[in-house]
């Protein structure tokens, strides 16, 4: 017994010396990431939580004074902030529902064989890969009242999409739909292709109509992945800043992220901005949690 043990030991040792141990490799990969997260995410998160209870201003030299819950009280009592939230909600509903409908619709169209399917799919995915700043700028050109192609194509004359207080939010939402519907499409396509073909055949033989088959077979099977797309897009839409900031300066398009930016970097009201950021964070968390709960329920079924 002892001789066997020694033999195995002597075999094991050189192997360890040759390179890093499994544990070493694991640490090599994980520690930089953890450090990065702590420095750039966790630390600011906690630090800003502290600031949200002070009247700190990053531009002033004055030391921060602890003000308790005053920032939160003021923000939640401010009608202007609530107006921003209403705009954001409107934007989220229009943009996300548009993305879901367009994205899922495109996925249904693509979920069959036709010539050049690969090329068409790739082209449809392009908007998602572009920078939001670029997208915002060229949609601004497309919407231009005097020489934009949209007014020309729709025959709207000099309708000012982005300066019209009522239309501006829709215009931005349309841009967002254009940009992010492919993301929903991609996820839906994955869900649709996972529905086994024999189920459709069985349904055809069971004399189920197209709509019935869609409602009873396709939709329930794709629902979990659609919900995941919905969660992602809602979170993102809630935090939208870039497209809206670039495309329009109308007060009707001032979503909460723009408001936050103005408060933090134009008014330099750092403490209050931190508090607002936390309010937004809690709202996003709450909405996401509702979705996740529902997702789990759908998955269970």
């Amino acid at each position, binding site marked *: 017994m002892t001789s066997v043990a020694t033999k195995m030991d002597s075999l094991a040792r050189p192997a360890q010396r040759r390179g890093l141990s499994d544990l070493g490799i694991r640490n090599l990969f994980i520690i930089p990431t953890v450090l990065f997260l702590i420095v750039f995410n966790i630390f600011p998160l906690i630090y800003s939580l502290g600031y949200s209870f002070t009247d700190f201003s990053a531009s002033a030299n004055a030391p921060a004074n602890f003000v308790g819950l005053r920032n939160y009280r003021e923000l939640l009592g401010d009608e202007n902030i609530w107006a921003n939230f209403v705009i954001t909600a409107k934007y989220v509903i229009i943009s996300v529902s548009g993305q879901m409908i367009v994205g899922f619709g495109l996925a249904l169209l693509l979920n069959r064989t036709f010539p050049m399917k690969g090329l068409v799919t790739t082209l449809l995915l392009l908007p998602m890969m572009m920078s939001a700043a670029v997208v915002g700028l060229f949609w601004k050109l497309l919407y231009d009242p005097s020489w934009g192609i949209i007014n020309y194509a729709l025959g709207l004359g000099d309708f000012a999409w982005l300066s019209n207080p009522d239309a501006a939010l829709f215009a931005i939402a349309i841009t967002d739909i254009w940009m992010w519907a492919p993301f929903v499409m991609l996820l839906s396509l994955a869900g649709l292709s996972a529905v*086994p073909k*024999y*189920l459709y*055949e*069985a*349904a*055809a*033989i*069971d*004399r*189920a*109509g197209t*709509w*019935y088959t869609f409602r*009873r*077979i396709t939709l*329930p*099977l794709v629902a979990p992945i659609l919900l995941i797309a919905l969660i992602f897009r809602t979170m993102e839409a809630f935090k939208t800043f870039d497209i809206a900031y670039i495309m329009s300066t109308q007060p009707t398009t001032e979503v909460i992220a723009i408001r936050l930016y103005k408060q933090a970097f134009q008014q330099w009201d750092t403490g209050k901005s931190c508090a607002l950021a936390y309010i937004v964070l809690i709202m996003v968390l709450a909405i996401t949690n509702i979705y996740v709960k529902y997702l789990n329920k759908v998955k269970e*079924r």
Partner: protein
Amino acid sequence: MAHVRLNGITKRFGAHTALENLDLEIEDGQFFVLLGPTGAGKTTTLRLIAGLEKPTAGSIEIGGVDVGDWGAAERDVALVLQQYSLYPRYTVRQNLEFPLKSNIRRMAQPDIDQRVARAAKTLRIEHLLERKVDRLSGGEMQRVSIGRAIVRSPRIFLMDEPLSNLDAKLRETLRSELKDLQMKLGATFLFVTHDQIEAMSMGDKVGVLNDGRLAQVGTPYEIYHHPRDTYVAGFVGSPAMNLLPADLLGDRMRVPSGAIEFAVGPALRARLGRSSGPITLGIRAENVHLDPAGSIEARVWGVENHGVEKIVTLKTGDCLFKATMPATIATAIDEPMRLSFDQSRLHAFDAATGLNLSLEGRALEAAE
């Protein structure tokens, strides 16, 4: 219930021909089994009848009406597949209700409940009705998918190897259950399988498919005892029929590879008609007997034990053949044995075409 007829069906997938000029007739209330190896075109035939594929040429009649332009829904057939094809996320009851709730049918809820209850009772799945289908065992799932077929009382039941994914014990049980069910319903069944035991035990009629062509259609007895050609002879029966190249010269039959030679009796001679020259001799393993006075001397080459009986592979000269023996007989490898066979059970096939000579002989006689 309906009568099905396929007329000159050809189906090509690109360059590959799955079915070639197939004629098939299934009578009303018949349990028809389509037997053949993987890739013979069984499933294609089924899908053509179901309306999931369109034939390249030929026509399909159901109940005397050409259904070529009808979709799967209009043909009113039921299809049970090997992979169960239950609708996931639904309970057994919802699965059974599915075909009844479609808009095309518009059935009243009490009517639906009654039909589901009746189907569940027939298949003994009443206790599973409220269970989700992903919590069922394989046998239960297959029962549910059969249930989904019977709730709607379709004109034809099409079954594509429904028992292949089940374990042996369950397969046996469901086999007899299915046969009972078919008799109880009096329905037309088309059952596709590669398992000859299923074909033999369930079918009223068996069609043997070979590479897109029907090799033979007949009762299980006919298929087994009067195979039309060497393909059917070799495919049906376990172990497969021994097929040995032989020469027929006058009244002498000689198997050159095995150094077997014997005189052809008058009965066999009559069956063979006038043929002579090279033939393929066919003899089933169970018709080879141990016989101390037998004309064949062979050595044991291999033994396969099957409980009541064993299948012994024997070697004589260069030729290997199989014989079924009672399990009580001691067999040791390389042990010499003397054997004989019943001439009335011999089959002779044309060496070139593979067709059964005795059937041909009979046909010739009938013509004269």
